[in-house]
């Protein structure tokens, strides 16, 4: 057990060494999320000022962007950790050690947890201090909301890593836009009912749509349906399992075909 902990800590330690010594890695960790908070904070403030109703856009829009950026940060935590090994062509070195795939993924997830929580704290402080957003509006449901979004972000990150492992370093350009591709179906800023009826079923397969629906119901003064949260939990766990299964499958194929042993941008097709 202790040996496993050491191996997992090695994955984590490598990523913190890289982070500690590089402003180029630290700044983007906070910068884009901070820009989003400022942008959506002003948009929410403006809409509050021009709206004839007493509806408060701040928790609906700015709160949504905080939660969405938390998901994106969780995804990036896993992907960036994985890409560091791709960029430094380190696969042969690490996979020729006793490190198991489960230990490797655990290390990446722990790194994602650490960086996501730090960024979340920054976003909460900025949104509260600059725009007066109170996260108490969401009550205790904020905890399961964050957990579901985090797990879904992790699942997307692992799935993205599987794509890069399978199709090579150039495939990283396929995985960075994943959050943007999913966001219309995640219904971050609008209800599922705003989508065309022909794609609403797709949105109901995307776990974050339940979180953002629940968030809006709380802001509107309604309770969150436990049934919908149960569906959200089930879908999220299923996504995590599918992502891990796909990564392990791709890794085993890479061992069979020799992809790990000759993993470079030029040799992978």
């Amino acid at each position, binding site marked *: 057990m202790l*040996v496993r902990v050491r191996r997992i800590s090695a994955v984590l330690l490598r990523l913190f060494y890289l982070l500690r010594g590089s402003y180029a890695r630290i700044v983007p960790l906070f910068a884009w999320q901070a820009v989003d908070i400022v942008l959506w904070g002003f948009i929410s403030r403006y809409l509050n000022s021009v709206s004839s109703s007493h509806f408060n856009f701040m928790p609906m829009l700015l709160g949504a962007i905080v939660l969405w950026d938390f998901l994106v940060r969780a995804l990036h935590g896993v992907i960036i950790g994985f890409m560091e090994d791709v960029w430094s062509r380190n696969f042969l070195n690490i996979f*020729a050690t006793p490190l198991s795939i489960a230990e490797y993924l655990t290390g990446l997830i722990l790194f994602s947890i650490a960086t996501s929580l730090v960024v979340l704290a920054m976003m909460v402080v900025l949104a509260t201090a600059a725009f007066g957003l109170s996260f108490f509006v969401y009550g205790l449901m904020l905890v399961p909301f964050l957990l579901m979004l985090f797990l879904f972000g992790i699942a997307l990150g692992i799935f993205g890593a599987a794509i890069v492992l399978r199709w090579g370093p150039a495939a990283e350009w396929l995985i960075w836009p994943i959050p943007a591709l999913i966001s219309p179906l995640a219904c971050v800023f609008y209800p599922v009912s705003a989508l065309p009826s022909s794609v609403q079923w797709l949105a109901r397969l995307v776990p974050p749509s339940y979180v953002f629906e629940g968030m809006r119901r709380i802001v509107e003064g309604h309770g969150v349906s436990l049934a919908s949260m149960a569906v959200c939990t089930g879908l999220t766990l299923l996504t995590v399992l599918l992502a891990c299964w796909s990564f392990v499958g791709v890794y085993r194929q890479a061992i069979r075909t020799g992809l790990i042993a000759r993993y470079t941008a030029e040799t992978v097709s």
Partner: protein
Amino acid sequence: MFGWQTGKVVDQEAGNMRSPRNDLSTSADSAILTVAGLSKEYDGTLAVDGVSFQVGCHEILGLLGPNGAGKTTTISMILGVLEPSAGSVTIDGKSLTTQRHQVLERTNFTAVYAPLPGNLTVWQNLRVFALLYGLPAATERVEALLREFDLLPFRNTKCGVLSSGEQTRVALAKAMINRPRLLLLDEPTASLDPASAREIRSRIREFAVKEEVGVLWTSHNMYEVTEVCDRVLFLSHGRILLEGDPKTLPGEHGKATLEDLFVTVAREPLTLED
């Protein structure tokens, strides 16, 4: 331990660094590595075709052959990063297939195509790999290796900015970090100047003599192979063509030098087949 930091270079030509064993065969009992019927097929092409050999304790076995002969494929399979189509790999009495983690804890390697991450310092890289191999006293082991390989001046230098010779020493330090029973060296002296290459050879030679280790070494430098290896295998088209003492093997096949024999293996392998 190795005398590197004192600038001492062991005189290989004098033969005082030859390992205790020099026999051509290795009994199954003393074998560190046993490769049996190893094959790898890519899309109908056999890259490695039923290769079998052993590496004994204190032995340095040279794996020779022209480009594309199957050396790196064989090493990849022994490292567990490439699944064989057939055959088995046993290291220190344990099967790579069924006891992968235990086997890899006792194995290590260095290869020119697998440099350590250049964006970490020497100390950071060695510490990370010490933990990846599950070492209990990682920091102490890293400190000892920094001293042994004369890397103390570079402990806080990023590996990417080191010279080829310095990077090779760091890679060797990493390769020895878990005190491996099997050490795989894929062209460890490629791109080194003759002085650095000689120092590296003497270091590995001494390591093989003093530690309970077997070494599998690939190189295209036949002088180096003659100097370092106890035994050599010639691979051609994925099969073992010749095996023997690098000092006597050329004469047994009517060649003046190992390099002449290598050229024959590369150009006219059929003339050497029984």
